[in-house]
């Protein structure tokens, strides 16, 4: 069957199997490998992308249900040579080690800040509670998101 998506703002069309996950379509059909498969059952968050306005675990989303939907992946965050403010904040706060979980954290954080530009530290913790990191721990990641929300290093709110 045919699936049409608005992927990082660009219309794409691909032929999928009815039971394929959104993650599988992104990686295998479309070559967008920024979303990772960690657990494959919705527990680790490495596959997080933004579907419509919400961060979702793309390994538990049936691709066929996404017909016509807007999907954003980590590949779409940077604009030309400029990193997204959250990407820069992750670098500035040493919130990346192996990088496997990073794309998922970034998209969860992007969706959070779009919904609530000034979350409390507690709200940041709650928002990322379904994303697992096995290297850095979470303090640097929370610091990065909080700093970005405060406008630090993003060029905003100065």
């Amino acid at each position, binding site marked *: *069957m045919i699936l049409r998506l608005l992927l990082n703002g660009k219309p794409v069309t691909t032929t999928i*199997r*009815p*039971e394929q*996950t959104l993650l599988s379509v992104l990686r295998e059909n479309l070559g967008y490998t920024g979303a990772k498969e960690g657990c*494959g*059952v*919705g*527990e680790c*968050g490495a596959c*997080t992308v933004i579907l419509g306005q*919400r*961060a*979702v*675990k793309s*390994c*538990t*989303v*049936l691709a*066929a*249900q996404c*017909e016509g939907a807007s999907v954003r992946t980590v590949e779409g965050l940077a604009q030309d040579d400029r990193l997204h403010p959250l990407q820069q904040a992750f670098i500035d706060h040493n919130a990346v080690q192996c990088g496997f979980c990073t794309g998922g954290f970034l998209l*969860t954080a992007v969706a959070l800040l779009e919904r609530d530009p000034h979350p409390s530290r507690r709200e940041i913790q*709650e*928002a990322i*509670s*379904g*994303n697992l990191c096995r290297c850095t721990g979470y303090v640097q990641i929370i610091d990065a998101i909080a700093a970005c929300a405060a406008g630090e290093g993003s060029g905003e709110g100065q």
Partner: protein
Amino acid sequence: MSGFAFQSAGSLEEALAVLARTEGETRIVAGGTNVVPAIRDGRQPPALLLDISRLDGLRGLREEKGKLWIGALTTLAELAASPLLAERAPALYQAANSFADPNTRGRATVAGNITNASPGADMAPPLLVLEAEVFLTGPAGHRSLPLREYLTGPFRAALTRDEIVTHLTISPQVHSAFIKIGLRRAMAISVATVAVALEKATDGAVTACRIAFGALGPTALRAPQAESVFLGRQPDSALFAAAAAAIAGDIQPRDGLRGTREYRLSAAGAILERAFSLAYYKEA
């Protein structure tokens, strides 16, 4: 060939027609958080995947004739963010907020949680104590049944293959609360859960009491023996001890990966006291 097929229903009538005429396995998919991992693990045999996620008439949460109407496709994120639920039915609000994580809650639906019928389904205990009624539509028309009859066994619900859940109703109760024990706070399958809803007289005596446990039996269970301990009484430590002792007659905890039978029995008494106190002292 995988043997799977996919069809998206544009209306409830269309979805019912597909169910009525399709021979072989059909699987209704809404949020996909149970069905999609089951496909991956091979637990879901090849089937027609019938997408009902576009049936917007099955969404929403509103007050209707003294009850709360909850559409089948209402997500747990919507329940977790509802001021109406927070005020009128705290047990369900708290359960929605303890379910998985915010991103999973954005996909998972309330009808999916109870129809999947996991013994540890987080929505089941609060819905049981709020006297949830499940409304189904099928070729023979509409029917409804209490949630306790809808949950027929582990991963079994009283939904026939040609029916769809349209909505639930609950009786709101401000004196209600939910407590969950998981191995961590997010993305945790329940080790034990409890929900309490009660009414009390002006002198503080408990005049009605409903208690339900999750992950402590083949389905979420009401606890009639523990309930009767509280009736006509005001809670104190002796009463909580009596209720904790009575629980053993109500639940059937098992040894499992997430806890032993003994631990679960003991934990059930502790969380009952906490949930009961939250419900009892909640200001109306």
